[in-house]
Each structure stands twice: as structure tokens, then as C-alpha cells.
């Protein structure tokens, strides 16, 4: 009975122990608080670096970032929750950088990538939007940048650093708006941080006019070009030249839209035509400044004047050699891939485009159309167009078919017979891409199935193997540009460590040429274009016109996320993207070991591309408008 007197104190003692407030007053253990971050230079910079990563549109207009299987704060599109295609597939780390390639006239989607724009290419983007969107993520990044721009002035950074970092943030913000305005036309321009109790105009903002947004981008980039250093202490940050490059590109876009587009009554889309020259002039001046005063040049380090083939490797190296003279601003890649444990410092280009067998699956997610291939001239300046009837009338060796073209062709595109490490070459020597699909036996019959072979010669070459076994139709070509022969594509996605050029000098020259031409300065235009052709190894043009500039741009900048936007701003997409495209099929003739060429005029089958006029602008969508009644939809949605 007395034992109770021993035990009770223990019990009471425990009550006593536990009567402290720390049971309920706990702090999160996995986060920094607001107060800590804005007082710590390293954390402030870490926040800014995230905004660099959160502007994936700089990388071929990818619209999300892959951060984890649960998604990242960047996957803000309402569709993202359930739509792997969107938040995973559109990321800069996976298939996002290929999307504007396949929706343009550059290439056909084959298979493999989780995201594709096949429906959008066939029927146009529909009223609910869904792909190519840069809205929710854009405003997320913009808010972060606005917050940075608001808070950093009172932070303990040194004045120099403060000015530079603020200008970097403004550069990124301008890039975000640039990527929006080219999609939607006018969008709400937010430069402050809305709070839950902000005035209605800020919480439910109306769209600014398209012109206002372009002007914002131009004014901002112009101003920060005067603040940013020419060379940053750390390579990869925005510089004065990056700001000028964005300025030049945006001014050129604005000029074309003014000149070729229609001005909507509400001014939310379109720019008054009389402003075109003004914008072209801005583009001209900014690009001229980069050309004249900038430390950049076309990359020619690997050219051996006596060997035209050296120009192939030289052009490949424009995209493979890090920090080369042609790169104005790059997103650097390196470090570990996502799995295991890496971050967002690599991308997936090689796995998407490398030929078999040095890639798992088939690579070749986007297959260039024959029409694009034909844009590559012969080395002597002749048109690259094929006589299709003649081509199909005889047997060819690959050398006969593809010899003597613009060296950029071999550096941008691979096809049957292109050298590639480890490629299984049943007809060629080793290390050569074997892309035939079909085998003509000596008796004239044709084998087409992947399990067929004749005397040890497979009916389907290794590169076509996957396509043939699963019914995928290819164009006969693949993308070589940016392919890193040393990449290990046998592991997972995100194994590419090549840097991506956000701005490169060749684009500056072409922007300059176009702006000059629009302003009637044909001499400047001709010189700039000839600089490009010269480096490539092609003869100079004697005269210049708009078609030639656009042609040069299409070839030089192929697969670099220019073509689709160019066709839109020139208002040519309606015709150039509403048509069928073609591809070829190589059929190996067993006896002669030459190839019969079949040209398929409708390589997309019944998914013939269509670009409805409304698609010059993406829809604001009824979901966004029902959230914000002050938004007005773009025409024809």
C-alpha cells in the first residue's frame, strides 16, 4: 500500500517535466525563414540562381524544370498535376527543348518522347491551350524576380554586386516577358509583388497591349545593358552583351509583327505598322553594337583552309566546345544527371537525337523533313533541291546521293551512311549509321520486316530496327547538331553535358542582316549573310533579298528554336505550316549494295500539319479568363 507513495512522485514528476511550452512552440527544421535569407549574401545569390533555372524558356523554349517525380514549384500549370506529358515532358531536362522543332517545318515527331505536339501540329492549339504554355510558370518566376528586385536594395550586398544582381534579375524578367509576348501578345505586365490584400487592379490585372510588353522588354534590356558588366566574374551570368542580344532579338520580332501582323482593335495583339521601322532600327543598332564592340566572332578555330571537311567538325564544335568565341550567353551543363542524385545541371539532348546503337531505344525523337534537308545547298552554291523523280528512278550509293553539300548539312543532320561510333553497319564499314528499311533480294522481291534477312543481310538496318518493329515511320534523317559523340546515352535521361547557347554570334549577324534589309541597308545585310556563308564554306552571295536571308537563317539556326517563331512573326506559318512534308526511305539492293530511294510525300500520314490563323497567338484560355474577368481572349478562340 505504501508503494503508492513511491510511484506517485514519479508520475507527478513526469507531468512536471512535460509542462513546458516547447511541446507546442516548434520551428520547421527543413527551411530557412524570410528573415534569414535576405540578410545572407550567399542565400540571396542562391535565390537568384534558382530564377536562372526557373527561366527554362532560354533553352529552346522548354517551359518547365524537371526537379523531382513529385514535380517542382515550376510545374504550376493546372494540367501539371495529372499530366505527366506537360510537367515532365516539357522540361528543359527531358523533351522540352525538342518541342518547337517538331511543331515547325523542321522535323516530324517519331516516338519516344513523353511529350509531343502531334495533335497541336495537326489541328492547331485549341481554345483550352495546354502545350507550349508559358504563363503560370512565367508569373511564378516573375514574382520571384520582382521580390528579389524589391528586397535586394536593402540587403547587405555591396553596392557593385547589388547593382549587377539587380540587373541580372531584370534581364531574366525581360526574358520571361519576351517569351510571353511572342506567345500571347499583350499580357499583364507586373513589376511589383502582389499580396493577398493588394488592390484589385493588381490581383486581377488586365492585359497590357502587345506594344507595351515589347517596349517593356526593350526598355529594360536597354537600361540594364548600361549596368551589366561586359564580362561577369562568373561565366554564365547575364552580361551587357546578353542584354543587348535580347534587345536585338526582341526589337526584330516587334518590327516584323508591326510590319507583317494585324493590329487588333483592342491593341492586345499586333503593333501599329508605322512603328515597324522604328523597331527594325533598334534591332539594327543593337546588333551592330554587338558586332562592332563585342568580343565575339564566328567560331573558326578548327577550320583547315585546305580541307573543306574540316568545316564540318568546325561547325559541330560551335555547339560542342564550351565557352567558345561565338557564345554570347550559355546555360552551362555538367555535373550529375538526375539519377542518381543529380540536380538540374544536365539536359537530355543526346538521348533524344543520337543514332543507335549508342543510345537506348532508337534516339531520333524528331526526324528532320526532306524539305529542310533540301534547304542545304551544294558546296558550290547550287540549290539543294532534289529532282525527286530522278532520285527515285535509279540506285544510289550514299556518296553519290549526299556528296558535296554545305558542310553544315553534315554537321546538322545525320542519315544513312553517316559515320557514328559503334554503329552497326551491315552494308557499310564499321561505325556507320545503317538506316535502310527494306531489302531487295536478287530476285527483285522486297523484304520489309525487321525479322527478315537475306544471306545475313538484315532487311532493316539497325537504325530503322526499332521503327520497323513498332510501326514508327521515320523521315530517313536525324539531328546531328549539338550531338556529343562522347555522351553516354545508355544510362538515363539528362546525360548531356554540352552547354546550350542562349545567344550566339551567328544569330546576331542574321538578326542584323534582317533588320538592315528591312531598313533598306542591303549592303550591310549582304555582308553579314556572307560572313555566315563564308564560315560555312559556301560561296558569297552577290545580291541579297529577304528570301535569301530567311533561307540562310533556316539553315544556320536549324533546330535552335528560331524557325517556329520566325514563321509566326513573318506571318508565314499559315502557309508554310499548313501542308504535307516528305521523308525518304532507303531500300538496300542486295546485289549492287546500292540504295533505292523512295520519297514519301505525306510522311505524317493522315496527321497533315495545319496552322490555323488564330495560332499566331496562343489562347489565354477560358480557365484563366474565368479566374480573371479582366483578361480578354485572343481572336478566334
Amino acid at each position, binding site marked *: 500500500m505504501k508503494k503508492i507513495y513511491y510511484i506517485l512522485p514519479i*508520475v507527478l514528476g513526469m507531468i512536471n517535466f512535460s509542462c*513546458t511550452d*516547447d511541446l*507546442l512552440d*516548434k*520551428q*520547421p527544421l*527543413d*527551411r*530557412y*525563414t524570410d528573415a*534569414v*535569407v535576405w540578410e545572407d549574401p550567399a*542565400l540571396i545569390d*542562391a*535565390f537568384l*540562381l*534558382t530564377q536562372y*533555372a526557373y527561366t527554362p524558356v532560354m533553352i529552346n523554349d522548354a517551359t518547365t524544370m524537371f526537379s523531382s517525380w513529385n514535380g517542382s*514549384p515550376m510545374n504550376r500549370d493546372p494540367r501539371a498535376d495529372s499530366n505527366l506529358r506537360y510537367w515532365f515532358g516539357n522540361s528543359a531536362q527531358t523533351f522540352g527543348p525538342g518541342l518547337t522543332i517538331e511543331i515547325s517545318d523542321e522535323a516530324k515527331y517519331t516516338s519516344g518522347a513523353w511529350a509531343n505536339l502531334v*495533335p497541336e501540329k495537326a*489541328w492547331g492549339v485549341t*481554345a*483550352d491551350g495546354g502545350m507550349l504554355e508559358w504563363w503560370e510558370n512565367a*508569373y*511564378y518566376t*516573375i514574382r*520571384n524576380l*520582382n521580390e528579389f528586385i524589391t528586397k535586394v536594395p536593402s540587403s547587405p550586398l555591396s553596392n557593385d554586386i547589388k547593382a549587377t544582381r539587380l540587373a541580372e534579375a531584370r534581364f531574366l524578367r525581360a526574358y520571361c516577358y519576351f517569351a510571353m509576348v511572342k506567345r500571347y501578345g499583350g499580357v499583364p505586365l507586373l513589376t511589383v509583388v502582389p499580396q493577398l490584400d493588394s488592390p484589385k487592379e493588381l490581383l486581377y490585372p488586365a492585359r497590357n497591349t502587345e506594344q507595351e510588353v515589347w517596349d517593356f522588354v526593350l526598355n529594360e534590356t536597354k537600361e540594364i545593358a548600361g549596368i551589366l558588366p561586359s564580362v561577369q*566574374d*562568373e561565366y*554564365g551570368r547575364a552580361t551587357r552583351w546578353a542584354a543587348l542580344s535580347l534587345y536585338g532579338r526582341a526589337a526584330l520580332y516587334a518590327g516584323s509583327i508591326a510590319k507583317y501582323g494585324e493590329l487588333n482593335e483592342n491593341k492586345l495583339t499586333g503593333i501599329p505598322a508605322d512603328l515597324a521601322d522604328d523597331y527594325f532600327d533598334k534591332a539594327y543598332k543593337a546588333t551592330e553594337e554587338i558586332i562592332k564592340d563585342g568580343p565575339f566572332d564566328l567560331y573558326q578555330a578548327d577550320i583547315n583552309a585546305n580541307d573543306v571537311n574540316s568545316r564540318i567538325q568546325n561547325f559541330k564544335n560551335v555547339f560542342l566546345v564550351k565557352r567558345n568565341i561565338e557564345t554570347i550567353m550559355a546555360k*552551362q551543363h*555538367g*555535373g*550529375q544527371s538526375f*539519377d542518381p*542524385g*543529380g540536380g538540374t*545541371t544536365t539536359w537530355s539532348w543526346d538521348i533524344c537525337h543520337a543514332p543507335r546503337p549508342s543510345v*537506348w*531505344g532508337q534516339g531520333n525523337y524528331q526526324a528532320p523533313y526532306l524539305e529542310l534537308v533540301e534547304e542545304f545547298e551544294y558546296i558550290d552554291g547550287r540549290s539543294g533541291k532534289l529532282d525527286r523523280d530522278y532520285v527515285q528512278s535509279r540506285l544510289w550509293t550514299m556518296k553519290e546521293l549526299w556528296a558535296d553539300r554545305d558542310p553544315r548539312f553534315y554537321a546538322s543532320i545525320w542519315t544513312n551512311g553517316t559515320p557514328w561510333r559503334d554503329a552497326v553497319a551491315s552494308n557499310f564499314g564499321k561505325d556507320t549509321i545503317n538506316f535502310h528499311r527494306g531489302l531487295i533480294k536478287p530476285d527483285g522481291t522486297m523484304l*520489309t*520486316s*525487321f525479322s*527478315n534477312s537475306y544471306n*545475313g543481310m538484315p532487311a532493316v538496318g539497325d537504325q530503322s530496327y526499332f521503327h520497323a518493329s513498332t*510501326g514508327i*515511320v521515320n523521315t530517313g534523317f536525324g539531328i546531328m547538331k549539338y550531338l556529343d559523340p562522347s555522351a553516354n546515352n*545508355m*544510362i538515363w535521361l539528362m546525360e548531356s553535358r554540352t552547354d546550350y547557347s542562349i545567344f550566339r554570334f551567328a544569330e546576331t549577324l542574321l538578326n542584323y542582316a534582317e533588320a538592315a534589309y528591312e531598313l533598306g541597308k542591303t549592303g550591310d545585310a549582304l555582308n553579314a549573310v556572307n560572313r555566315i556563308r563564308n564560315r560555312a564554306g559556301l560561296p558569297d552571295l552577290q545580291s541579297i533579298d529577304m528570301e535569301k536571308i530567311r533561307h540562310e537563317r533556316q539553315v544556320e539556326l536549324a533546330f535552335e528554336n528560331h524557325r517556329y517563331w520566325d514563321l509566326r512573326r513573318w506571318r508565314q506559318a499559315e502557309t508554310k505550316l499548313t501542308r504535307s512534308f516528305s521523308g525518304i526511305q532507303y*531500300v538496300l539492293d542486295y546485289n549492287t549494295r546500292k540504295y533505292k530511294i523512295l520519297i514519301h510525300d505525306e*510522311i505524317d500520314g*493522315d496527321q497533315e500539319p*495545319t496552322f*490555323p490563323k488564330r495560332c499566331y497567338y496562343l489562347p489565354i484560355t*477560358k*480557365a*484563366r479568363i474565368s479566374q*480573371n474577368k479582366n483578361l480578354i481572349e485572343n481572336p478566334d478562340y
Partner: protein
Amino acid sequence: MKNKIQERFSFAGIVFLLLIIMFSANSVPVHAQTNISQTRKSIKMTNVTVQQLVDNLGADFKYSFFIVDEQVGRTTVSVEKKNATIREILDEAFQGKDIIYSVKDKNITISLKKSSPKQEKTSKVISGTITDENLQPIIGASIKLQDTSTGTVSDLDGKFNLEVSDRGKIIVSYIGYNTQVINISEQLNYRIILNENTKALEEIIVVGYGTQRKGNLTGSISSVKSDKLTTAPITNVTNALGGQLPGLKTKQSSGIPGADASKLSIRGFNSPLIIVDGVETNFNNIDASQIESISVLKDGAASIYGARAGNGVVLVTLKRGSSSKVSVSANGSVTIQNSTNLIRSGSSGQRAEWEREAHINANLPASQIPWTLSQIQKFYNGNDPEFLNTDWFTAAIRPWAPQQNHNVSVTGGSEKVKFYSYLGYNNQETISRNDGGGYNRINLQTTMDAVIIDGLTLSSSFNYIKENRDFTAMNLASSNYYYALYDSDPRYALSLPDKTMLSYAGSSYGNAVFVSSRKLAGYSRSDNHNLRINGSLTYDIKEIKGLKLKAFVNYNGYFGLSKVFRKQPGFYSYKADIDEYIFERKSQDPTMLAHGTSYSEDMTQQYSISYENTLNEDHQLSVLALHERINYKNEGFDTQRGNLTTSVIDQLFAGDPTTASNGSYASEMGRSSFVGRVNYGYKNRYLVETIFRADASAKFPKDGRWGYFPSVSLGWVVSQEDFLINSKIIDNLKIRGSFGQSGDDGIGNYQYYAGYAYDMSYILADKIYQGLYSTGLANSRLSWERLSIYNGGIDFSFFKRKLYGTVEGFYRLRTGIPGYRTESLPSTFGASLPLENLNSMDSRGFELEAGTSGKYGDFNYDISANISWARSKWVSFDEPVYTDADQKRIYGYSGKWTDERYGYVSDGLFTSMDEIAALDYTYVDLGGNEALKTGDVKYLDMNDDKKLDWRDQVKIGQGTMPNWMYGLNMNFKYKNIDLGMLFQGAFGYTSYIDLESAPTTLKYENRWTEKENSKYSLVPRPGSKNVANWWYSDYRNHNASYVRLKNMALGYELGKKALETIKLSKLRIYVAGTNLFTLSSLAKYGVDPEAPEGTPAYYYPQQRTVSLGVSLNY
């Protein structure tokens, strides 16, 4: 300072727990069965009460004393003896007193000697045996002479002797059995059979922080006992609950060993709070055999758990010892599992046929048509080495997999000390044919209840669960595993002439056999240890009858160690004509070794004071006041390395150091609560219960941290009224009503802090920097959501339980549901919005349970059925103010059922181009009808505006959780044979089924073909990229309903004679099964009715089991 206090606290807690365990351990020898009547003792006690005397003697002589009369207990006696036996001591003590005693085994009954000469004259001694319906002796039943205090208890053989007067009645009662009143007749020996009364009013039901007599319940509480949970051997106890309890909905969405739990939902609400022995704990890994009972609190009764209880509470009570002789029971079973619904991979002929049709249908180049018809025929024939038809699926998956469930428990004790020990072992293998691993679990439990000193009881329990999951490196829960299974192309060979090389099968993971094998693909292993130790001290304050003090401490710790070792071999194909192996690819995921640990703990303390008494015979009063504190903590880290140079050593150091990475996490939480409850009953007729709880949670900011949750319920036991009490028809009739408020705080911690965390990395100057992102805006006003629930019910029992049951209805209003204001606030705002208490929802529903039980001769039956319905509506939902009526109708939430689904209405497939040409409306999003072809899905222009667009979407179904759920539980017993069956079913839900995305036989067999051109093919035209075929519509969203024989058991119990020869008290042999038979409206889609939505092949199918088992008691 803060840390110090915590340390001290934890230290004190652990010491306390250790003390408890030591006490318990020391008590064990008490139960050793020795011949104690020879024990001798010296004693000297003067003027003590009989009660004090026996308390003193009890400890030394190991007898249980029963004092049948309070007066006797208060009588003072004196005794002085040296080295005396118990009889000698008692004889001396009672000398000259009117006290007699009787010794039977280790029970000593002390009673008053009746000195009335009249009584003496007519008295006689009767004897008897008390058994249950199965003729098992009932030990410790009380036998009392009516209207006297004379009585005794039955002994170990159920026997008793009692001195009685000539006439009169004896009352025989025992907890859980119907009390019997027997007229004393001429006969001297009585055979009394007590009927078990599992559903009757005396049943003790576990309620929040205590128990209640079922007859006195006023809340809506359903309860199920252990025997119903162990009908058939199962590894996860949640799978035994379906159909058992009215209002409890279950859905099992996967059959993965160790992860096949059913999702539980009370009345269609979100996940309920699970309380095991007083503490919030997951109970997926507790053996069904360990469980004594499960109660489900469905209405205001749950308010006693306050802020966590809004979705109802499931109370699980584990078994404890009882005061009986030591008994051992053992169960063993072996089970075979096979899939309820196995979807097979399509053959090579089927695939080739599809590819050919797709190519032609898509109008792609004719020169690239993948297969000729004769080649397809060769695939079907399967005897040409160039046209193989490899069955990868069968090579990887076996038709059945073994499972074992064994356990042994020991229980026993005296009035002073009771104990229970349990050891269980479960093993469940996967359906992988090739070294696919499985799930192992060991459950260990020891409980002890000891009266330390008079009035002070120490209860302790020690639970340890070790779980081991060991599967292939490919996660069985991820669809990748199933992609590999189904995507392995049958046109590739199963193996190559060189057996050391793996054969490629067109899959990014190589082939199906690879992914299903630990040996080939590596493993993914996790070991989890769960330790739950608790102890309580209860002190009955003698001075005030019914007043108790209780302190309870529980430590719950989880420790987990996980390890994934992934291999990445190369895959080859073989070209026979050139005798060459071609390297095709490596499997998709790189070699990797990941190693991680996790640790979490929670420490719960409860201090309570309670009072329970019947005052003036008529007023039953029970009061509880309790304070509870819970402290949570968890942390862990993960490390990994890639590019392992060899797959021989599975250690981190074998990985490439440049790929090393690691991470960690940690969090803390705390809760503090005060609980009060008052129950009052008048004559067991009018019942009132009020509950009040105040809860504080560290999840919420200081100002809004405390929440207050009251509830009140009333009951009227009509059958206790004078006009019904003697009714022959109505045994029980009770009308109940309740109102209660509770909360739900199931949101992340610290939403009221704005913070920054690491995300992304970026390279500058070739150096990788980690980036920091904002976790979003904070909401300093965020609090739990509030739920108010109204409940009404009637309990009835007629004709001596020939018909019994419960009808119940409820209405629940849920306000302040946390939501993100993403709908009404446009995305231009740009921030991750904070959770806000924005939305509200109301739910309503009813439950009906009815049963009948009885017997005809040797045939006993008990049949009960239940059905329930529940559905919820959004009262208000943060959403845009829609001005467009169609937007409001289709996308709006407010005022609509929460589970409505909108989509297009299909009318099968187009079967002719004329039909398309004749359409008087156009597919707007396709820019016209040119893209349509035969075999595409035909949608209807529901609003007749000649345009097929989003406005044509209408309500096409409702969510995946059934509105209606029912169960039919049947138990029969004939002599030694018993049969139990539980049917369970559901209806009122839909399931979205995509047969096309996985290359299964379902896809090919149900496809549209030009030849058959069927309007009703389940898969549209192969090769169609027509996006309209994928619009959300009733073409793929189907009504679902099913009934399944959830479990069944047929048992045979050995007769008494046979048992005697083998010295066992019970031996039962049984065959049992689960998911044995299913009728489902989804059967035609080849889908299990509980399968997750979407692509039905890509998950681990539910398992059907058949078991053979034996259980015995000693």
C-alpha cells in the same frame, strides 16, 4: 535549456517504461503452477478485517479469494499461527465467527454462515456445471442466490457448489453471456448452459479513452470482434474489414505483399484517425490475431479525439491477459495466392496485326507496312524461329504464390496478475516467378496487468513489429515494372544460345524476366522496426468508490533501413545466320546503390481521473477528465552512389565517388489536449453523454492554436420502460441522437511560416550551385477544418434476437476545408499560395444493419447484413464566379456532389463514312469533321447547337469511391463443423478504364477492325491519332458495381473425446479463402472492381487466396 528539458523528459519516460517492463517481468513466476496447498506460513494479525487478512494471505498462498458478502469482508478477525497451512490459518481466524469458507482448487470462497434456524433446516447444497454453448466450461461465472448476497463462482471446470434454501432462484451470470435465472428444484445437480451474448447489451464496447456497456451507448459506434477478423488468414488486417462494419468503406487497390492494405473510409469521409491501444498508430502491420476488437466511432462520439477526429475514428484494441489458467493457442496456415484478375500480354501475332492496321489506318507509306498477312499468320503459328511468340509474361509471373501465417499466444493469470504474449510470423511472396522476393513480418507482443498493491494496477505492454520487404530493384508499386512485363515483345527469344547473355525484348528495361528477378535486376529492400511500449498505472481510490486515477505513457518508435541495389546489364539479340550477338542496349536505369535510414518517434502521455458509480440504484454516472500530450519527431537521411564498377559488392564504396549524393530531412510536431466526458443514465433508460475536448497543435500559429470540440448525445432505451420491459416481442429498442464537433488537421506542418528551401541547381563558371526557392506565402490564420455531425439511430432486437439491428442516419457539415485559392486568384499572382480554410462541404448518409441468429438442435446460425450509403456535396468552394452557365455547370463545384464527373457522351464508334458525313454538327477542336474516320469515337451534340465542343459535356458518372457499400455475414455451425462467409459489395461509382495504353490481350481483342466494324468495340481504330478519341467521356468511364465473396472459411473442430486423448482443449482444422468469387459489372473490361482507375494492367493485381490451416488451444 529547451533541449535539456526534453532530454530529461525522455529520460524520465524511458525509465518509467523500463520500470514497467521490469515489474512485468518479475511478475511472471507468479503463474507457475505449483502445488500450493502445502505452502506454510507464519502469521500474526490482530483485529484486521477479513479483507485485509485475505489480501495478506493471497500473496503468499497464491489463492484467489472470493468474498461473497461485503459484511464478511468488514468483519474483524485475529490470528496468530506459526508455520501453518492456509486451512489452519483460516480455521483459527474464523473460529467463533459466522464465517465459513470453501476451498476449490486455488479459489477460496468466504461467506457468511447463515445462522437462522429456519434456513438451516431447509438448506441444501446444490452443485452444477456451467458451460457455454460449445460445452466449454465457463470459469469464474457468478452464481448468486436471488435477493441475497450468498453466492459463489465457478471453478476451472465450470463447476460450483452452493448452499441454498429449498425454494428460490439462482442467477448465473458471466460477462459476454446472457444472464440466466434458474428455479431451484428438487434436483441437486444442474447443467447450466450460458448463451453467448456477443451483440447483446452487456457487451463491453471500446470507446474513446475507455469502455462502455453496449446498452448504454448513445453514439454511433460499430464494433467487430477478433473472431470475425481471423476467418481466413490475411496479412493485412484492413482487408478483413470490408463488409464487416456498417458505414465503413474499404477499397483495396493493390495486391503488393506488404503494401496491400485497403483504404478505409468511414461514411465516405477521408482517412479516419486510427487509434491502437490509446495511441495514434498505423495498424496495417498488426496481426489480425492480436486484435481483440475494433470499434468505429462515426458521429459526435469521435469528438473525444478533437482536432483529428473529423473523419471518424477507428479504435483498435489488442488482446490482453485474463484471469484464467495458462492457455496456449497456436494457429498455422499455408496459403496460395493468385491474382483475382490476371491481364495477359498480347501475343506477337496480335501485336503485328495491330501495327499493320495502325499503319494502314494512319495512311502511312505503303512500302513501310510492317507486316504482311502471311507473316502475321506465322506469328500466330509460332513455330518459325524468325517469327517467335515468346510468352514473356508467363516466364516472369507465376500463377500462384505462397503465403504463410503462423502465430502462437499464451495467456493466463489470476485476479492479481494477468499476462498475454503473442508471437506471429507472416510471409507473403510475390507473384514473380524468378526470385521476386516478398514480405516478412514478425509481431511480438507481451502485456501484463498486475495489481501491485491493493487498488494500484500496473498495466504494461510491449509490442515489437519487424517488417522486411525484399523485392526486385524495380518498385512493384511503380508502373515501370508492369510496362516491362507487358512491353516485352514476344517476337524476341526468351533466351539466347549463350545463357550468360540476357535476351533483349524491345523494352527499355530489357525484358520482363529481368525486371522481376532480384538476382538479375538487383534488389530493393527495407527493414522496418516498430517498437511500441506503454504502461499505465491505475489507482482505485478506495475511499470514494468508483474514483480512479490513471497515468499512461506510450513510446512509439519506428526505425527503418532501406537499401536499393540496382544492376544494369546489357541485353543482346542473336542473329543465327551469322552466329553473332548484337548488343541492343542496357536496361533503362543505371547501376545504383542507395542506402537510407529513417527514424521517427512519438511519445504520448495521458493523465486522467475518472469516476464511475451507480447512485441510489437508478443513477448511473461516469465522468472522465484527461490531459494528453504528444510529442513527435522524425528524421532521416539517404545516400547513394551510381556507376558501380561491379555488381558483386553491394556497398556504397563500390560506387563511383563522383556520383555520390546524399540528403536528409527532419521535422517535429507536438500536441496538447484536455478531454472531459460525462455520461449519465437514469435506470438504464434515459442516457446522456457530453464530451468536451480542447486541442492545441504545434501545426498552427500561436493565436489560433487551441480548438474546442464539444459533443452531446442522448439515448432513450424504450424497451426499459415499464410498458415494454416484459415484452415478449421486443428485447431491446433504443433511440439515439447526437451532435458533435470535431476537426481535421491533416495538413502539412508550419504552413504559417514563409520559408525557403533548396531546389534546382545551376552552373556558373563550371561550378554547381544549389538554388533556393520560396516555399510560398504563409497564412498566419490557418487552422483545422471544423466538422459538425448530426446523427440519429435506432437499435432494435426482437424475438430474442431473431431479428436485431441498427438503423442510422447522419448529416455532416465540414467547414474551413483547407484549399489553395488558385481558382479565384489568377495565376498572375505568381506565388505558391498558402493553404487557407476556404471551402465547405456537407455529407449525408445512412446505415442499416440487420441480423438474425438462433439455433435448431445442433444447428446454429448467425446471419447479419449491412448496407450503407453516403455522399457529399460542396456547399461552397473557392472558384471563379462563372458568368457562363456551361462553365458553371461543368467546371463549378459549389452546390454539386463532390464526386460528379463531367465528360462527353459517346454513341459507340462511327461505322461508316456516310455516318460521319451525315453529322449535323462539327467537331470544333478538330477544325471540322474531315479528320474523323470509321472506328473513331462518336460523340453526341448534347446541347444541339450544331457544334461539338466543351459545352457538350454532361455528367457521366461519379467518383471512384462507392456511394453504396454492403456486406452479408453468415456463420453456421453444425455439431463440429462451422462455416463462415462474408460477401461484400459496392455500387454507385465509376471507373475510367483505358484498355489501349498497355499491350495486353484486352487491347487487341477489343479493338475496332475494319472487317468487323463494330460500333461497340472497346478500343477505337488502331493508328488513330485523333485526339477526340481520348476526350474524357463515357466511352471509357464506366459504371462499376460488384459483389464478391470476400472471405469464407470451413472448419472442423475435434470432439471432446478425441481432444482428451491428445490433451488439447481445442483443435480446429479449416480451409479458408479470400476474394474467392466476384460478380462485377467491370468484368467485361477484364478489370478487377477494386482496381485503380486508368490502365488496368499497370498495377499489382489483388490476390485471391486459399488457405489450409489449423488452430489449437492447450
